[in-house]
Structure formats: structure tokens, C-alpha cells
């Protein structure tokens, strides 16, 4: 469903994404992991058509995102990491607006709006301006907007940030059901427990390149990691020594006494 071919992105002389190729088939929940600044968000934004690749291409259901953008994007639901929504629209109006961007309107959409707002516990807020919503509520609204047009694949950047435990659990269930019905989810996350518990396959990206790809068991075998957790594997592959050093510095460092305002 999602296919990346030699995807590359340069910002001036800086290479953010370096010749990535990847295939995410239908019915798979795929985890995209990596340290900060590794190129995860840039890759996801290229998949969503927000950034233009310097080289390579992205295919969604066989349609090139740059050459056949309308057909490709009709299949997609994108959830960004930062929930910027029109502050002066109400939650219900925002969902109707997003549905209209996908050419959908009418009674079916009205029912879908009501259903999604109910599921994400936003029904009592539906006629209130988004400017009054909390961070988590905005995040829920954006997730609802990505589902409003019944996409075939969902690309999601850090889905759990800002969500309360109940909403996080709900989202996990929604994603699992979505995948069980043949949908595809490509999800970047820092929460390795979530990735380990939910993802069918994972890719680990560092310095813009994929350094490992497969199921968690595949990765254990490839790197002779025994029954190591995904977190341990991740640290091994992305330079976990640095983390241990940092922990030591923080633990043994001199305690700074408060000195009052200067």
C-alpha cells in the first residue's frame, strides 16, 4: 500500500533522508522508529505530500504522490505531531471541512462526524470553538479528521503525545481494528513499548538511513540480541552507550544548590 523508492531529502547541504526504500503492505501496522532528528517526520511529511522529495518517489496504492497527488491523497489519512487546527472553527465544523476537502458531504458525513465525536468523547464540545480545546482534545480532533473520509492508509507522527491513557488505549484499538479490516498504518513513535506491543513490523532510522527493518523477532535474530526488548535493541542500534553515559553524568554530577533570584 505504501511504497518508498530511493526517497531522499536534502535541506541545503544537510541530508535529512538518505535514499530510503520501504514497502508497507495492506493489513500491516508498521512502526517507524528513530532518535530525535533521525528523519522520521521528514519521511512521513514526504509520504503525506507536504514536503517534496529531493529524489525518489512515494507510491500510495500504486499512485505517485507527486505525479497523481489527488488519487494518492484520497487514500490517505495524515495525523501530524503538532495539532494545528483552525482556532475559530468548532470541532464539528472542522470535521465537516476536512470531509469536504475529500469531496464528501451530506447525511452520511453528518452521521460520521457525530460518531467520531462520540467515540473520542468530544460530543459535548462539538459546538465550541477549537481555541478552547486542550492539547489532547485537539489531538483527538485531528485523529478524528484523519478517519472522517474512511482512508485506506493512515500515516501518523507520534500519535500518543498529549493523549490521556483512555484515549491512548482507544487509539491503539482503533488502529488494530483498522489493520484487521485490511487498512495500513505507518506510525512513528518514541514510545517503544507501544511499538513493541502494537506493530507487526518496524524500521529503525538513524541519520536519514534505515539501519534495521523487520519484525521485532527478525531484529533480535539479525543482531543476536537473544530475548532483548525492543528498547534494548533500539539503544544498541542507535548508540545506546550515549544514553548510559548521560545517565551516569546526571546521576553523579554535582548537585546545584538553589541560589535565589539574581
Amino acid at each position: 500500500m505504501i511504497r518508498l523508492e530511493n526517497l531522499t531529502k536534502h535541506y541545503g547541504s544537510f541530508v535529512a533522508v538518505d535514499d530510503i526504500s520501504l514497502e508497507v503492505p495492506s493489513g500491516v501496522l508498521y512502526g517507524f522508529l528513530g532518535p530525535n532528528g533521525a528523519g522520521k517526520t521528514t519521511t512521513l511529511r514526504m509520504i503525506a505530500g507536504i514536503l517534496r522529495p529531493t529524489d525518489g518517489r512515494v507510491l500510495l496504492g500504486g499512485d505517485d504522490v507527486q505525479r497523481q497527488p489527488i488519487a494518492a491523497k484520497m487514500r490517505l489519512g495524515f495525523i501530524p505531531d503538532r495539532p494545528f487546527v483552525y482556532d475559530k472553527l468548532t470541532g464539528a465544523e472542522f470535521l465537516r471541512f476536512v470531509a469536504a476537502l475529500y469531496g464528501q458531504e451530506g447525511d452520511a458525513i453528518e452521521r460520521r462526524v457525530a460518531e467520531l465525536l462520540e467515540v473520542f468523547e468530544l460530543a459535548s464540545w462539538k459546538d465550541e470553538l477549537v481555541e478552547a480545546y486542550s492539547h489532547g482534545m485537539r489531538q483527538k480532533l485531528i485523529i478524528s479528521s484523519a478517519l472522517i473520509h474512511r482512508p485506506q492508509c493512515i500515516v501518523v507522527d507520534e500519535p500518543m503525545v498529549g493523549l490521556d491513557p483512555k484515549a491512548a488505549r482507544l487509539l491503539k484499538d482503533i488502529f488494530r481494528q483498522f489493520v484487521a479490516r485490511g487498512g495500513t498504518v505507518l506510525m512513528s513513535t518514541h514510545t517503544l513499548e507501544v511499538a513493541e506491543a502494537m506493530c507487526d513490523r518496524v524500521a529503525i532510522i538513524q541519520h536519514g538511513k534505515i539501519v534495521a527493518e523487520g519484525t521485532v523477532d527478525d531484529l533480535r535474530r539479525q543482531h543476536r540480541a537473544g530475548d532483548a526488548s525492543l528498547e534494548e535493541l533500539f539503544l544498541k542500534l542507535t548508540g545506546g552507550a550515549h544514553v548510559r553515559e548521560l545517565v551516569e553524568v546526571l546521576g553523579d554530577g554535582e548537585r546545584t544548590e538553589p541560589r535565589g533570584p539574581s
Partner: protein
Amino acid sequence: MWRVLEPKWRTAIQRIREERSRGGSGKLLTMVVAGSAFWIGVFGILYRILKYIRGVEDVGPLLAGKILGVVLLSFVGILVLSNVITALSSFFLAKDLDLLVSAPVDWLRIYLAKLGETLLHSSWMVALMAVPIFAAYGVIYRGGVGFAPYAVLTVFPLLALPAVAGTAITLVLVNVFPARRTRDLLSIIALAAAGGVIMLFRLIRPERLASPEGFRNLLDFIAVLRTPTSPYLPSEWASQAVMGFLQGTVDPMPLVLLWSTAAAFVTLGAMLHRQLFAAGFTKAQEAAERFVRGGMWRVTIGTALGFLPVGKREFVIKDVKLFFRDTTQWSQLILLAVLVLVYLFNIKTLPLHRGEPVGFFYVTLVSFLNLGLAGFVLAAIAARFIFPAVSLEGRHMWLLRSSPLDLRALLWSKYWVGTIPLLALALILTGMTNVLLEVRPFMMAVGLVTISGLTFAIAALALGFGALYPQFETENAAQIPTSFGGLVYMMATIALLAAVIVVLWQAVYQYVRAVYLGQPVVVDAAMILWFVLAGALCAGATGAALWVGLRRMERFEF
């Protein structure tokens, strides 16, 4: 205080560095040239007025002092309003406040730092404007080298006083209303007040005061000039201090008054801040809770645009809703309405209809030149309302670019949402002006058709340049047109207006000549050629601006 403001000034320095590394010298040069031209213009006009006044015996210095007093008083008025609005952002809504309030920083440091920030943001334009004014006074009255530092010494407390007063007013208001409601309230009050003052000033027709018949004798006139406009206002003290220095009779009293009052104000302001800031800041966290249904727009615009595809239709409805729900946006329409009334009032009071055939010539000339003036007004309005349209979508581009919405549909929606109200205004302005001027049908037709063509081009230029020079980080729509892109847009629009006026003048001259000589007006091939050329200029500008805007939007990256 310097440390508290460190993130701000470091950001400013970094922006300048980035600009320089991107080869922004052309940008800087354009800004310097445009700014210098404006300064020289203001200096030149005031220089001529003061030179004339200086030659008038007895009354000269008094009149010059009076003018300075009025100018400074208007500055103080503008500054208080501007500080009230700026203080709301810097003291209660700024993003750095959470960090500052939670850090172990003394309340007095926060107050002084934020006061400094407010003062800088709200006064820089007035301070720049004061430079050519004081320069003209210094040159005419031979103030010498010492006048420049003396003027700075006088102006600084004059800027500080409204900053403290404005901040204090905001502090009290925020304690009464939630900050976001206060912002809504203030923008309406401020603009209604500004509109009222303009109306009042225009309706009393100050130009009549220039005629000597208004005063019984010279002594009465001098007596009026000697009376201070407002003895308790700092603008009067500043005017006295400056005129005293320039006339060689240095009286330290006005300066002492200015500085001691400023010091007292800052102290009182700090005390008030200590008492009220914590409560006000807490209250400012409250959101303006508002439940809206928005059914009205769906029924009206939704039905009217029923023929459009759903994506385009909803985009238009969304833009209209966002505009009318943001008080800071629509409240500026109050000022716009006032300016239109004043514009029409000015045309009405022109003494033109005094006889034929000279009257006909002037009426036609005024009606024709009015096209340029109306075009300029429309360009300024488009700069405020259409130019920021693309920039304001910046934060939401993730949604628009990841959805199957065609960017042409987005541009189309932005263009028509801006153009239709602008066109209505253009037709009202030109039509009403021509009715008041009692022009003949030929000029009425030329006026209405030309202004329509210009409106399409002006709106396209605003949108195109807005896309070419986007300001995605600015949340305040009113700040976006004051950017470099806004300046380039205004320059391009003025060039278009000039070109269209020059081209059309050939046709209008042919018409005026025929009527003046009593010959029948013949619309011949030459006249049609000029009309076609003017139309081509407008159409070319419209097409090119939208095309460039679309290409630029396709290259946006977020």
C-alpha cells in the same frame, strides 16, 4: 531586565544574520530607499510649512510651537491606544510568560522588561516618524548639533509615559475581563474611537480655520496661539522644551516635568503591577468560552454557492467564518467605513461646480484622477485583508497539502473571497464619487469599468505577493502587510495604477477635447486601442500575479 529580554534580542540578531546570509542586501536596500523617500517627503513638506511660518512676524514661533504641540498630542493619543493593545500581548498572552513567571525572576524585573518590550513594539513607528519632524524644526530654527541629543532627551519620556499609562489600563481591564475578551473589546473600542476622531476632525473642516475671516483681529489670533492646548499634558511640555531650546531661551522646567512625571509613572505602574499582575495573569489563562452554531453561513453562502464543488464551497464558508469570528479582523471594517465616508465627504466639499466649461474640465479631471486615488485606497485595503490570506494558512498547510485539495482551488477561494467585497467597495467609491461630481455618462462608464479591472488586478497582486513573501510565523494578520513583501506589493500596485492612468489618459483627453470644442465624441480606433491596452495591463497583472502565487505555493515546504 536585559537578561529577561535576551531571547527577544538574540532572535532579532539571528534573523538579521540569516537574512544577510541569504543575500538579503537587495531587500535591505529597498527598505532603506522606501524609508528614506518617506522621510524626505515628510521633512520636505514640514520644511516648507515652517519656512513660510518663520517669515510671519510675531505669530511665527507661536504657530510653529502650536503645530508641534498638536503633532505631539496626536502622537501621545496614538501611543496610548497602541500601548494598550500591545501590552495585552506582551504582559498576558506572550508565549514566554509561562517560562518567566515560573522562573525565580523578581516581579520588578518582569515589569520593567515587559514595559520595555511594549514600549519598543508600540513606539518604534512613532519614533521614526518623529525624526524628520524634529529634523525640520532643527534645520529651520538652526538648532545646531546639540539639538539632536536634546530632542532625544525630550522624546524618550514622551514615549515612556503612554507606555506606562497603556500598560496600566490593560492591567486593570484584564482583571475585569478575561484577556481574550479584553482583546476583542479593545480592538472594537480602539477602532471605533479612532474612527470617531477622524469623522469629527473632518466634519469640523479644519481648513476653514486657515481663513482669516474666522478671527476678529490679530490679537485674538495671537491670544489663541498663546493659550496652551493642554497645559497638563506631556506633549505640551515637550513642545515647550523644544521651542525654548530652538529660540535660545532654555527653561529646564518642561524637561524636569517630563522626566519626573515619567519616573513617577513608572514607579506607580510598578506598584500597580505588583498588586494586580498575578490575578490578571491567572485570569488571562481563561479561554473565551463560546458556543457557536454557524448555521447562518451554511444557509446563506452555502446555498448561494450550491453550484460549486463541495471542497471549494466549504473553503469559502470556512474563510468567511474565520474572518467574522475574529474580532481583530472584522473590527477594522469600522475604520474602513469611516474612511469611505470621509473620502466621499471630501469629494462633496470640493468647490467645482462654479460654471461651464471650466467646471466640466475640472470635474472630468477630478473624476479621472480619483480612479488612481480610489485604486490606492483599494490597494491599501487589499494589503490588510487579502495579502495575509496565504500566510494565515501556514499552520494548517499540513492539512491542506496532505488532502486531495487542488492548490488552484485554494487560490481560487482566497481570490474570490477577497475580490468580491473589494469590488463592491470599489464600485460604491467610484460610483458615488462620480454621482457627487455630476460627471457625464461617458466618464461614469470609464470610471466603473476601469475600477473593476483595477480591483481584479489589485486583489490578484495582493494574493500573489502574499504567497511570494509569506509570513507563516506571524499570527497577527495586521502585522503581515508591514513586512518587506507588503512594501514590494504596494510598490508594484502603484506602478500598475500609474501605468493604467497614463494609458487611459490618452483616451480621456480625446474625450475632454471633443466636448470642450463642442465636437461630437467619437469612439474611434485610437480610443479603443487605449482602452484595450489598459484592459490588457489589468488582465496581465491579474494572470501573472495568480500564476506566480500558485507556482510559489506549490514549492512551499513545512
